[in-house]
């Protein structure tokens, strides 16, 4: 621990020598940590550094193999999640734990519904009033009677936080809370975090986005490969230093988009409408070009990419690939035409959890890997594919036979990227290619995109991470309510312009 840290204040939560072992893996190795009252404590580190494991120990999901946790001086050894709740520790995981079919109020009070002593009937009025009060504290306006499934991701996030507050959480732990939020929503969330701190609660804040860490945290603890690197005061450090501590080596955190000579148009969208949102979108993507798609969450990005991939039928308009009519009616058609696709939802529409890394990587190209009269799968060809793409993306696995569900999120993402590349990679449709991915892997993925475009690939990239969107694309197309409101090139390609277009719908670089 850094000696520069002020130790006068007594910690609320004190972790010492925490070790967590799984068969074959030591996920945490003798980690020390102290969380004070009224502080925002950032927990940073690359994927696989042990952050999620630490959170799950605090949340009562994992039992440590060694070490202790003390809560206000007393030993805290939760055996199940309900123990954590009872001690006022609320962990908000990346994957929400809400009931989508229940209302907001029912979720906020899940497990501790106020009820009448005589009839055992739930007091809905009291729940609604309590919700409004909690949302008041958070400075947001969400209808307590809305069904959670109908809320946006950011609203669901806020419901999770309200639930933690309502349960009188004194230590609130947030795992990548902004991963799916737009810039405006992130600002609102950071305000909420500051409010929580000002109320004297402690917030443990896990994020890959360092600008958020610097915007909101008082101290930061850096983990690497399951070990504590250091705890330091945010005021006494800067981004470069933190990145160096996280990765243990120097990394250029600024994206370099190498300019590529303009190629011919590979993919053309002409007045395409699809799904519920997407209206009248026209777009050219050239060989060697990265077209970034920006906008607030749900502005039509998913519809656009799925339409190109044949997963969503067009309602109007048409597409061309290499000057030929391109009308994929299924993803298989798009794959056959050489379009690779990365879904934004890794868990639900990406990984095949019961299958190995090799099997996950090759699932879209099995046709190419069959041989002989009986068209059987060739194990050698599959392993060659794994070696080729797996090593190019530096997938960290014990080997091709490891189950993908055993890898960290960032490594799963690399396998899925390899899957998207395997069909040939002339046209790549990448949704949030670095969501939930650590900074080292992020740089590798960006370098790979450069490499692919240098070889002539045409890339459409959706990203809600503004520096990434601007840094890795040649042209940024901003969507708002399903329409193109901004085409930002050259000098116009600024964060401000993206935000203005996305949030106000004002047009830049597009005829009205």
């Amino acid at each position, binding site marked *: 621990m850094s000696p520069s840290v002020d130790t006068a204040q007594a910690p609320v939560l004190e972790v010492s020598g925490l070790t967590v072992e799984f068969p074959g893996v030591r996920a945490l190795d003798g980690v020390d940590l102290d969380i004070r009252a009224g502080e925002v404590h950032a927990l940073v580190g690359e994927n696989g550094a042990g952050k999620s494991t630490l959170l*799950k120990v605090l949340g009562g999901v994992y039992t440590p193999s060694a070490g202790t946790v003390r809560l206000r001086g007393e030993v805290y050894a939760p055996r199940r999640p309900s123990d954590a709740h009872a001690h006022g520790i609320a962990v908000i995981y990346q994957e929400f734990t809400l009931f989508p079919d229940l209302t907001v109020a029912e979720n906020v009070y899940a497990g501790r519904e106020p009820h009448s002593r005589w009839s055992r009937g739930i007091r809905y009025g009291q729940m609604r009033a309590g919700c409004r009060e909690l949302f008041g504290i958070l400075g947001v306006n969400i209808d307590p009677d809305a069904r959670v499934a109908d809320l946006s991701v950011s609203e669901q996030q806020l419901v999770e936080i309200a639930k933690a507050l309502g349960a009188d959480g004194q230590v609130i732990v947030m795992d990548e809370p902004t991963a799916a939020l737009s810039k405006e929503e992130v600002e609102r969330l950071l305000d909420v975090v500051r409010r929580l701190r000002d109320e004297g609660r402690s917030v443990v804040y896990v994020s890959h986005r360092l600008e958020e860490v610097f915007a909101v945290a008082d101290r930061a603890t850096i983990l690497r490969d399951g070990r504590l690197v250091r705890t330091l005061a945010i005021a006494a450090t800067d981004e470069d230093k933190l990145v160096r501590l996280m990765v243990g080596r120097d990394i250029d955190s600024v994206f370099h988009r190498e300019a590529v000579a303009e190629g011919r148009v590979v993919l053309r969208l002409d007045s395409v409408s699809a799904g519920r949102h997407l209206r009248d979108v026209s777009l050219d993507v050239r060989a060697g070009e990265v077209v970034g798609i920006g906008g607030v969450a749900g502005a039509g990005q998913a519809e656009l990419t799925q339409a190109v991939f044949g997963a969503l039928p067009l309602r109007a308009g048409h597409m061309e690939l290499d000057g030929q009519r391109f009308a994929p009616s299924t993803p298989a058609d798009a794959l056959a035409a050489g379009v690779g696709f990365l879904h934004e939802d890794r868990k639900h529409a990406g990984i095949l959890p019961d299958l190995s890394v090799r099997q996950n990587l090759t699932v*879209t190209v099995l046709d190419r890997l069959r041989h002989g009269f009986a068209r059987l*799968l060739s194990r050698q060809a599959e392993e060659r594919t*794994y070696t080729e793409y797996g090593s190019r993306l530096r997938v960290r696995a*014990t080997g091709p036979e*490891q189950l993908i569900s*055993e890898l960290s999120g960032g490594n799963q993402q690399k396998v899925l990227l390899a899957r998207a590349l395997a069909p040939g990679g002339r046209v790549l449709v990448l949704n949030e290619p670095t969501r939930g991915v650590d900074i080292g892997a992020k740089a590798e993925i960006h370098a790979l995109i450069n490499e692919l475009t240098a070889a002539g690939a045409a890339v459409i990239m959706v990203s809600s991470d503004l520096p990434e969107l601007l840094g890795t694309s040649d042209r940024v197309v901003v969507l708002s309510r399903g329409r193109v409101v901004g085409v930002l090139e050259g000098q116009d390609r600024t964060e401000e312009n993206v935000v203005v277009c996305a949030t106000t719908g004002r047009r830049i670089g597009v005829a009205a």
Partner: protein
Amino acid sequence: MTTAAPERAVRAADPRARLSRAIENAPLAVPLVLIAVVLTVATDRFLSVDNLTNVVVAAGIVAIPGLAMTLCIAMGEFDLSVGSTVSLTGAVTCTWIVGGHPAGLAMVVGLLVGAAVGLLNGLVVTKLGVTPFIATLATLVIVRGVSLAYTGGRDAIVSSSTLKFLAAGRVFGVPMPVVLTAVTALAAWWVVNRTRFGRWVCAIGSNREAARMSGLPVDRIRTTVYVIVGVAGGIWGLLISSQLQKGSGQLGLGFELDAITIVVIGGTSLLGGRASVVGTLLGAVLIETIRNGLNLLNTPPAYQRISIGLLLVVALTIQALRRNAPAEALDDV
């Protein structure tokens, strides 16, 4: 990273993978051996050639639909209608034979009926979007009704040497059902481990949405699997009718549970994503050994049901324990 690194990693992982594959079927082999030893000591007939042949033939007969069901369960779905398919196939084949058609033709027609039932299941599940449980439950009732209506409630008794050969014949001294099972098992192992189709089935069972977004023809594969189960149910029906020399609307009652039970006891997860062909075979042998043993010990049939039910609970508990232990712990480390 050097290019040599992944290869080194492969070698390092291999012994562990091989070991875990070797002990995968241990939960089945151990009780099987124990029961065999107990029966050998407790009865004087268990270890006779005739009795063991009976066990193996019975296991083989249930293994054929079980292997098809393995695919279906690996796909994350299951088919409750096979018992009714058994009845309808046997009824159609026997009625055709009674009506003077050649037995070979009658058997082919029977199998086509099985395939048709499978196709119906597949289309209702994929095109109408009905969940497999409900869709195949409906088919179970409908097909049973069709079978009863078709036979008019009477047994179609046949004496066809061709049909009889299916269950009672021998090829080079090996009983026909065992030959059929061996062929089916090899084919199933091949499909699961070496073909694109088998990989796709497991991919769909593991994450259907991801499979769809990977360009897999999900509905076509699902339909095909139901047709395979239908045909396997048809083969089962022919074998049963061959054994009994009759077709009837009453045959095959509750058989669907036998087929599903041996798959689950064999270790194929009901959640889908993985298929164990060897496990299903062992599951079939285990169940038939228990049945045989209880018969030899003169236990009333009701106790057979109870013991197989208990075995199912034990198998599912083992599955649940395995699932909750290391795999989940490694998630998101």
